[in-house]
């Protein structure tokens, strides 16, 4: 009932049709994308570490993460260091300390990475974990959100997110606190 009422009112009241603006290519600085990505990521509280292979990545993670904790991954190559995630009740992820997932690509202008549901293993994982580790191929960094959405195109997903840095808040007197409800740290592992 309300549906018709609302839609009719809108049809009656909306202004004369205005076309969408023509698509323009937005400006981006000709800079080293990895360097820019790293800079912005650090500015928003994340850290970046480049490795040449997974063994190096594992060694690095062991050196910075709580060793005894519960490690979960959605990346099969990390199985011997973390438990491969299985479908199930997301509440069971409650006590995850470290989660390791992959991203499709990163965006230099804002330090965000694009992760779709199937790369997360479970939607809740990148949020509920205390520390989040995301693997990103160094060749997959685009300058702006414009290129990012061109890559995304019309791809199908149930859920996806740009993740930019660790969870944070500045709600108390604008003082920045890292680790609001989600991860207390975000580490991007840059791979070859």
């Amino acid at each position, binding site marked *: 009932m309300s549906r018709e009422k609302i839609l009719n009112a809108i049809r009656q009241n909306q202004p004369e049709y205005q076309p969408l603006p023509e698509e323009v290519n937005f400006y981006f600085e000709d800079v080293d994308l990895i360097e820019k990505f790293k800079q912005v990521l650090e500015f928003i509280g994340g850290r970046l570490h480049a490795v040449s292979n997974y063994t190096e990545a594992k060694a690095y993670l062991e050196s910075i993460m709580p060793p005894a904790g519960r490690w979960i991954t959605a990346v099969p190559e990390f199985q011997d260091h973390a438990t491969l995630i299985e479908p199930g009740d997301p509440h069971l992820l409650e006590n995850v300390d470290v989660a390791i997932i992959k991203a499709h690509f990163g965006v230099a202008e804002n330090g965000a990475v694009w992760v779709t549901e199937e790369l997360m293993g479970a939607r809740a994982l990148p949020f509920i974990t205390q520390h989040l580790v995301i693997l990103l191929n160094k060749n997959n960094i685009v300058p702006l959100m414009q290129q990012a959405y061109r890559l995304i195109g019309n791809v199908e997903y149930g*859920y996806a997110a740009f993740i930019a840095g660790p969870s944070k808040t500045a709600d108390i007197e604008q003082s920045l606190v890292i680790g609001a409800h989600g991860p207390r740290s975000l580490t991007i592992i840059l791979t070859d």
Partner: protein
Amino acid sequence: MSLTKDHAALAQVFNNDEERVDWHDETLWFVRAKRDRASHGIPDWELLRETASRIKHNVLSNMHNYLVQFEENALANGIKVHWAADAAEHNAIVLSILKEKGIERMVKSKSMLTEECHLNDFLQDNGVEVIDSDLGERIVQLAKEPPSHIVLPCIHKKKEEIGDIFHEHLGTAAGESDPQILTETARQHLREIFLTRRAALTGVNFAIAETGEFVVCTNEGNADMGAHLADVHIASMGFEKLIPQRKHLSVFLRLLTRSATGQPITTYSSHFKKPRPGQQMHIIIVDNGRSIQLSREDFRNSLKCIRCGACMNTCPVYRRSGGHSYHTAVAGPIGSILAPNLDMEKYADLPFASTLCGSCTNVCPVKIDIHDQLYKWRQVIVKNGYSTKTKTAMMKGMTLALSSPAIFNLSGKAGRLALKFIPFAVNNGLNPWYKQRDMPTPPEGSFTDWYKKNRKGGKP
């Protein structure tokens, strides 16, 4: 005028504590400065704003079809779509969804729409407990206050006051006011809530007609924590949240957070397209006066708003009067052009709570002509009879004096008449000008007097 205190009166109360005003002003100016650094870092920022504004213009002009398209796609994605003509219907829909599932406790992330609809009070009255999970919103909820800012809900509270609230409700040590410790306490408290609530309500930042998905932006991750752990996810949106295509997010997501807080993007920009297996996902599309605003040619652009809060942070009046002085869910310049649409009498004061300096219009990422709309609302409000008799009489007196050169120039010693009719120069004890400001010293004669003496006649 309504019986409740108007903006001027509430702002005066706020100004009784000048030190607090300074603190409030500086805190928000800090956010404005961060916004400037972020936006000045994008050389084609103005083109980005223009593009966003024009996309939104297209949306307004094609709203009907986009909504139908959005609904169709959302349904195909397995999302349930509801339509609410007003706040009461929106609230009733939320309640019925919860009732059907036998849910009595819900967690909610930031949604100004639910503030506009007074959802929390309604649900509480119907036996449903709601806990706000955005830190700032949780703080004002515990303080039993409404948010004072759409992006920074408890920006009016000092950390010591927040410490006291946490001490009382969450058991922190008395006198503890370290933001780090308070945030950690809230984290523990709300984690327990996320893990135990079967329903989560979130707002919507953008809904995409082309795909039927919606995007929610947070820094804390609270919308996701709620939604991904709940059996039922309800997303409430005003219909103006629509954008045509997914790729348009590349414009809006660049603008939103830079304008809001100066960050390049929020930590999480979550794209919800389908419920996860076993989960129910609902979208409630709300009108609540928006279709009327759409009909108002002078004011429909206000529906372009993406709720970044930049106009509030930059507003010299907002910074010095506090969000609560606007006595409406959305405060500041944007609130002042939205509220009169809903209730012209109750909010007749708000378009006057501005110097029309125009800074809001300049920061607005979707280029809403905010200060021009404030001016236009003033005309509409007066024409509809929501001005006071005294003011009307004064204005008529002024008009009379200023329409007649003879009366205007009648004064022997300059200024006598102007003193009487220029509103800021009524020289008596009740004169609000004189309370904290001296009067200009009336000169020997007016310029016209001087001109007559020193130059030949009138027009050359």
